[in-house]
């Protein structure tokens, strides 16, 4: 099993969720995130004052998938989240030793 984590632009969240559903993903965890990458934040003007946005708002998605599905899911996220601009985000995959479904006690692929 793999854990696919994606940091994307908040405004692409709905598109990515739709793409994941189309790819057969049954569940996803979505949370608010903030950070910066190569752009090192940026400046904005609000209420007449210029201020630096050090941490840019992002959306974090986490999906647990079977090993065989990891590449498909990653591609689905990348395709749906891509705008071609700086700050589109990152997707990474890490191996997962085990997964347990709390309600039933099932483990492994059965718990996905």
């Amino acid at each position, binding site marked *: 099993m793999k854990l696919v984590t994606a940091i994307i632009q*908040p*405004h692409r*969240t709905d598109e990515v969720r739709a793409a994941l559903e189309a790819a057969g993903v049954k569940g996803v965890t979505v949370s*608010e995130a*903030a950070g910066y990458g190569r752009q090192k934040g940026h400046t*904005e003007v*609000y*209420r007449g004052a210029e201020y630096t*946005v050090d941490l840019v708002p992002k959306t974090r998605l986490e999906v647990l998938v079977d090993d065989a599905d990891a590449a498909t899911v990653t591609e689905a996220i990348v395709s749906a989240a891509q705008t071609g601009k700086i700050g589109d985000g990152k997707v990474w995959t890490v191996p997962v030793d085990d997964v347990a479904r709390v309600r039933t006690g099932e483990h492994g692929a059965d718990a996905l």
Partner: protein
Amino acid sequence: MEHIPSAAEGSDAEVPHPSGVRDLKRLRADAAAQLTSDGVTGPERRRRLTALVKRALVAHWNEAAGPAEGIALGAVGSLGRGDAGPLSDLDLVLLHDGKTQSKDALAELAQRLWYPIWDAGLELDYSMRSLTECRQVASKDLAAAAGLLDIQPVAGDDTLVAQARAAIYQDWRAASRKRLPELLAASRARAERHGELAYLIEPHLKEARGGLRDYTSLSALSATWLTDRPHGVVDAAGEHLRDVRDALHLVAGRPVNVLGRHLADDVAAHLGYGDPDDLLASIADAGRTVAYALDQTERGARRSLERSGIGSVAWKARRLSKAPRHVSVAEGLIDVDGELALAPSADAKADPLLPLRAAATAATTGLPFTPGLLDAMQNAPDLPEPWPEAARTHLRDLLRGSHHLVAVWEALDLHGLAVRWVPEWAGVRNRPQRSPIHRYTVDRHMIETVVIAAKHRRDVPDQDLLFATAWVHDIGKRAGSTDHSIDGAALVPAIGARLGWSPQFTADVETLVRHHLLLSILSTTRDAEDPATVGELLDALGHREDLLVTLRALTEADSHAAGPKVWTTWRASLADTLTAKARAALT
């Protein structure tokens, strides 16, 4: 099943006795179901269930104790008050005179009494005390003292129970200066832990603020003889909460007090509500009524304590040197010892501006209304339409009085004035919001939004536009609405015409109500870098910077008022980015 007589039907000989308490659990549940299906509801059903339980306990006592002297069985809690539900606990006190029966005999009797009750599957809260111990415990333990105020004889020596009751009441009144803050602190602690009954989607009927525990506290407060407690609508509210509790017990099959979502539909149906939201609205109304009554009774008790001169020496000296303070604070309104009252010379029935003037004065000064003033406000004639300038000024001052607005509006709403001023308010009054992010009903949420919007008053060119919009921004969230922003905007012209708002002001409020979610939606779901996103926002607001910054302030206030976790730095950053880009596009 056995015939369930009314409490007034008389002697025990008329009804068959249950054999002790062995079958009491089943008999009580059957009786509750039968009474409900016979249409016997509310207090009468609880009286009959209480009578049923007491008869069973008398039979049990006769078997366990016989004609023993110097002892009695007393009931406290719901059984003592005569409002026991179908699954209520049995709160019992084995009372003794401390001399007639030996310690061992009492212990044996207690075993003969309590174990069959437990064996019958009934929830039992018990104690065994002498008269002296009753008074000692009551002097140290607030909960025990408040419970013992309700003690009623069940079996044995009735005189003993009467003596205990008289002594406890006497001690309670003598210690009122100590008891009052304790009672109120306990109420506040419950509110902090369980929230406000009126605004919870899964309310704790007993412990939440405005719940059954607070309703019972009203009687404990009035038992101090410091003040009377309100009756009428408050008692109706309390009985309604008991009806809901009883229905919840029957539906759940156990004595739970939290009306969970999974039970709400069945409880609503049991009580004859077609829509569970209507049940929640009725609970909200009852909770608000009880909470307001508790506050009102508390103020009365505090005033009595201050006036009685049994307080500190310094206070007495101050009181003796000064006459009661009657200060004119507005036309026809006076400050009487920290409360807003009607001036003796005022004629409420000829003064349509009185309610709004009093509301604005209360909001700006923080003075609570006296009950007499609220009655006078209810009796004031309706305002002409459109409202005169003075009325709009008072409304403006009311909405600007953010610090006290919630308390003032609560009083106005409970006395029917909010709906009189804005009939559209009836559609959202006490209306629950099932979204987990919301902590308040729709009407209270709008008032909270006004309060929070005050923090942004300096960020916007017209603070009154911000307050007026916040005040009605969810007015379209009524039953059957599919898009509350659009439905709410459609109601604004009528409100504006009634209140005499200028056409431009009305149109601006309408625009902001229609688009009050737009900034939040666009900033979180669309690319702020995209000129189309900025264009959509500005098109909606007529490319006006004043509306843009007002919407930004409203968005934050609305989110904060919804719940503590809604407005995050994440959302703020997104909203600020889009707002900044929209402002830049205007220059």
